[in-house]
């Protein structure tokens, strides 16, 4: 009997997983019941596992280490191997295989975001520190998110902090691909990236997306490379005086914890410290923040497809609460969160800024 089946059998059906699940109650997704069905080897409706956003709350709160979110990945893997998956996910996976990004954009344009800069970023192999800024697919291609790598590059440059990029050699990190259940494709991406890291002697990786950080830290095995999120690096630079925040920012800003940065990797303080270091900025908190932050529903492959059920999305709830608390804007440090929050925010006249966008206005 394998380890995973053993783990499932130890489930005591306490329901803490469903209690913490951002999809429970309003969609047909019931994680406790799915584990029960797995225990008895009952059939599971094909559409159900795709609701999971991979926020990880169930796994963090499970008292028996059943790792329900990993069980979901296994259920999805079975569907992937069977070839029966939602069409839009199929497209995202096929595009990732061909172009190394789920949007199917040309790999040769992966470095296009650098064209907006008035300075050149060297290839990581040409840097002294062998410090890599890992851009991530959505930030390399999506017009809304392309400003994030450009901003962070400007910020690091301002602090005289050396870094390089991989340009078109960078491949999708595979965090979402693994969570969609395509373990074979994940292995290929991992191998391609790891080979590049080795070849160019990368010693340190700074990621822009918490999703990339998560996978490099926890799922790439022992690479010997120090991985951090850019908010950790920027906070260090502010603390040691390399970055001087000059501007005033007379705004009430509410910070949304991305699941892959906060609850899954414990980075709660650095983004808040950065925001608190800005003169005039008043930092607000959601009722559900830090460890219990409400997932925006952009993870676990949910960026690439829509579930069938109509229900009030968490991003909508988040925006409503931000307005209720009197926030002038919502900020976060994850491109997926930016994308999911911005739709309902625009509709309701609320502003969403990625943390680096605020920083650029005050540096």
């Amino acid at each position, binding site marked *: 009997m394998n380890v995973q089946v053993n783990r499932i059998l130890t489930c005591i059906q306490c329901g803490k997983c469903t209690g913490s699940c951002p999809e429970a109650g309003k969609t047909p997704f019931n994680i406790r019941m799915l584990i029960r069905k797995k225990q008895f080897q009952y059939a599971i409706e094909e559409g159900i596992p795709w609701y999971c956003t991979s926020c990880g709350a169930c796994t963090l709160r499970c008292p028996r280490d059943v790792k329900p979110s990993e069980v979901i990945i296994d259920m999805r893997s079975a569907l992937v191997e069977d*070839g*029966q998956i939602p069409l839009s996910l199929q497209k995202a996976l096929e595009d990732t295989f*061909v172009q190394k990004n789920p949007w199917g954009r040309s790999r040769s344009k992966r470095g296009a975001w650098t064209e907006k800069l008035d300075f050149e970023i060297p290839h990581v192999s040409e840097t002294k520190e062998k410090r890599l800024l890992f851009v991530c697919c959505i930030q390399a291609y999506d017009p809304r998110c392309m400003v994030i790598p450009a901003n962070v590059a400007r910020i690091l440059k301002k602090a005289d902090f050396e870094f390089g990029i991989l340009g078109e050699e960078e491949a999708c990190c595979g965090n979402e691909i693994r969570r969609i259940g395509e373990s074979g494709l994940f292995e290929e991406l991992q191998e391609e990236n790891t080979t590049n890291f080795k070849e160019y002697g990368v010693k340190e990786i700074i990621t822009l997306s918490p999703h990339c950080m998560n996978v490099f830290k926890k799922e790439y095995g022992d690479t010997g490379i120090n991985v951090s999120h850019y908010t950790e690096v920027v906070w260090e630079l502010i603390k040691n005086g390399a970055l001087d925040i000059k501007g005033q920012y007379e705004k009430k800003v509410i910070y949304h914890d991305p699941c892959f940065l906060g609850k899954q990797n414990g980075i709660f303080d650095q983004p808040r410290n950065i925001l608190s270091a800005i003169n005039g900025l008043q930092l607000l908190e959601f009722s559900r923040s830090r460890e219990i932050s409400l997932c925006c529903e952009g993870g676990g492959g949910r960026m690439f497809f829509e579930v069938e059920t109509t229900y009030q999305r968490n991003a909508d709830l988040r925006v409503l609460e931000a307005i209720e608390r009197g926030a002038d804007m919502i900020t976060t440090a994850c491109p997926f969160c930016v994308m999911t929050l911005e739709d309902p925010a625009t509709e309701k006249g609320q502003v969403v800024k990625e943390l680096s966008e605020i920083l650029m206005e005050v540096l």
Partner: protein
Amino acid sequence: MNILVFTKRVPATQEEELRILGDGKEVDLSKLPFKVNDWDNYAVEEAVRIAEKTGGTVTAISIGDAESDEVLRRAIAMGVKDGFLIEVEKVLQDPYARAMLAYNFLKKENIPFDTILTGVQSEDDQFASVGGILAALLKVPYSSMVIGIDNIDKDHLVLRRELEGGLQERAKVILPCVLSIQSGINEPRYVSIMGVRKASKVERKIFKAKDYEENMSSLIEVVKWVYPPKKGGATMLSGELEEICKQILGIIKEKGVYQ
């Protein structure tokens, strides 16, 4: 029913800016990613579904370089029994030459079939004629743009062809035959990387194209690759966002898109 299905590895050009090299004799494919021809993906799926329904086997055939083994493994992962690669030394574009090569191969190797499926066309050359020429050489019936197979009998098929204006034509086609499969006939299953890896264990036979070149002349000579002429017609709007929005609204009203 025993089915042969042709599948081709093509460059993924949708998102790329293609470059013509030198004096127009060649397109730069060096940096392009490759994939299975979209129409062939539907053809393979259809072949597998027919075989699942009627019994019999499906064999995938690819004409191309050694790398084309990739699309054979993919087809096997989808449920095809085995694969033949007809390895060419240089890119073979001419559809008559490709069809003649396939014809010579089928005859010389004495490969039996009830039906041959091809995609309607390939994404790269877009001649949409290899299937038809092959059927003529084999002297068997041919049906193009097949969008549905309704009935499979011992000696014939009843199928639907896609016509202009949203119409379909129902036709009875005597077996053996060649069909070119239109995209949208089915929803091809997802092929996982694990599936493709497992398929590597299934034998694919490699044949050299030079052994089947009898009467294989090219009827079309590519004189030159050229970029399409630049056309006018684009209007650039300028000004503040609100002003631009008003202009856009004005234009779509004027063109009758929005009343």
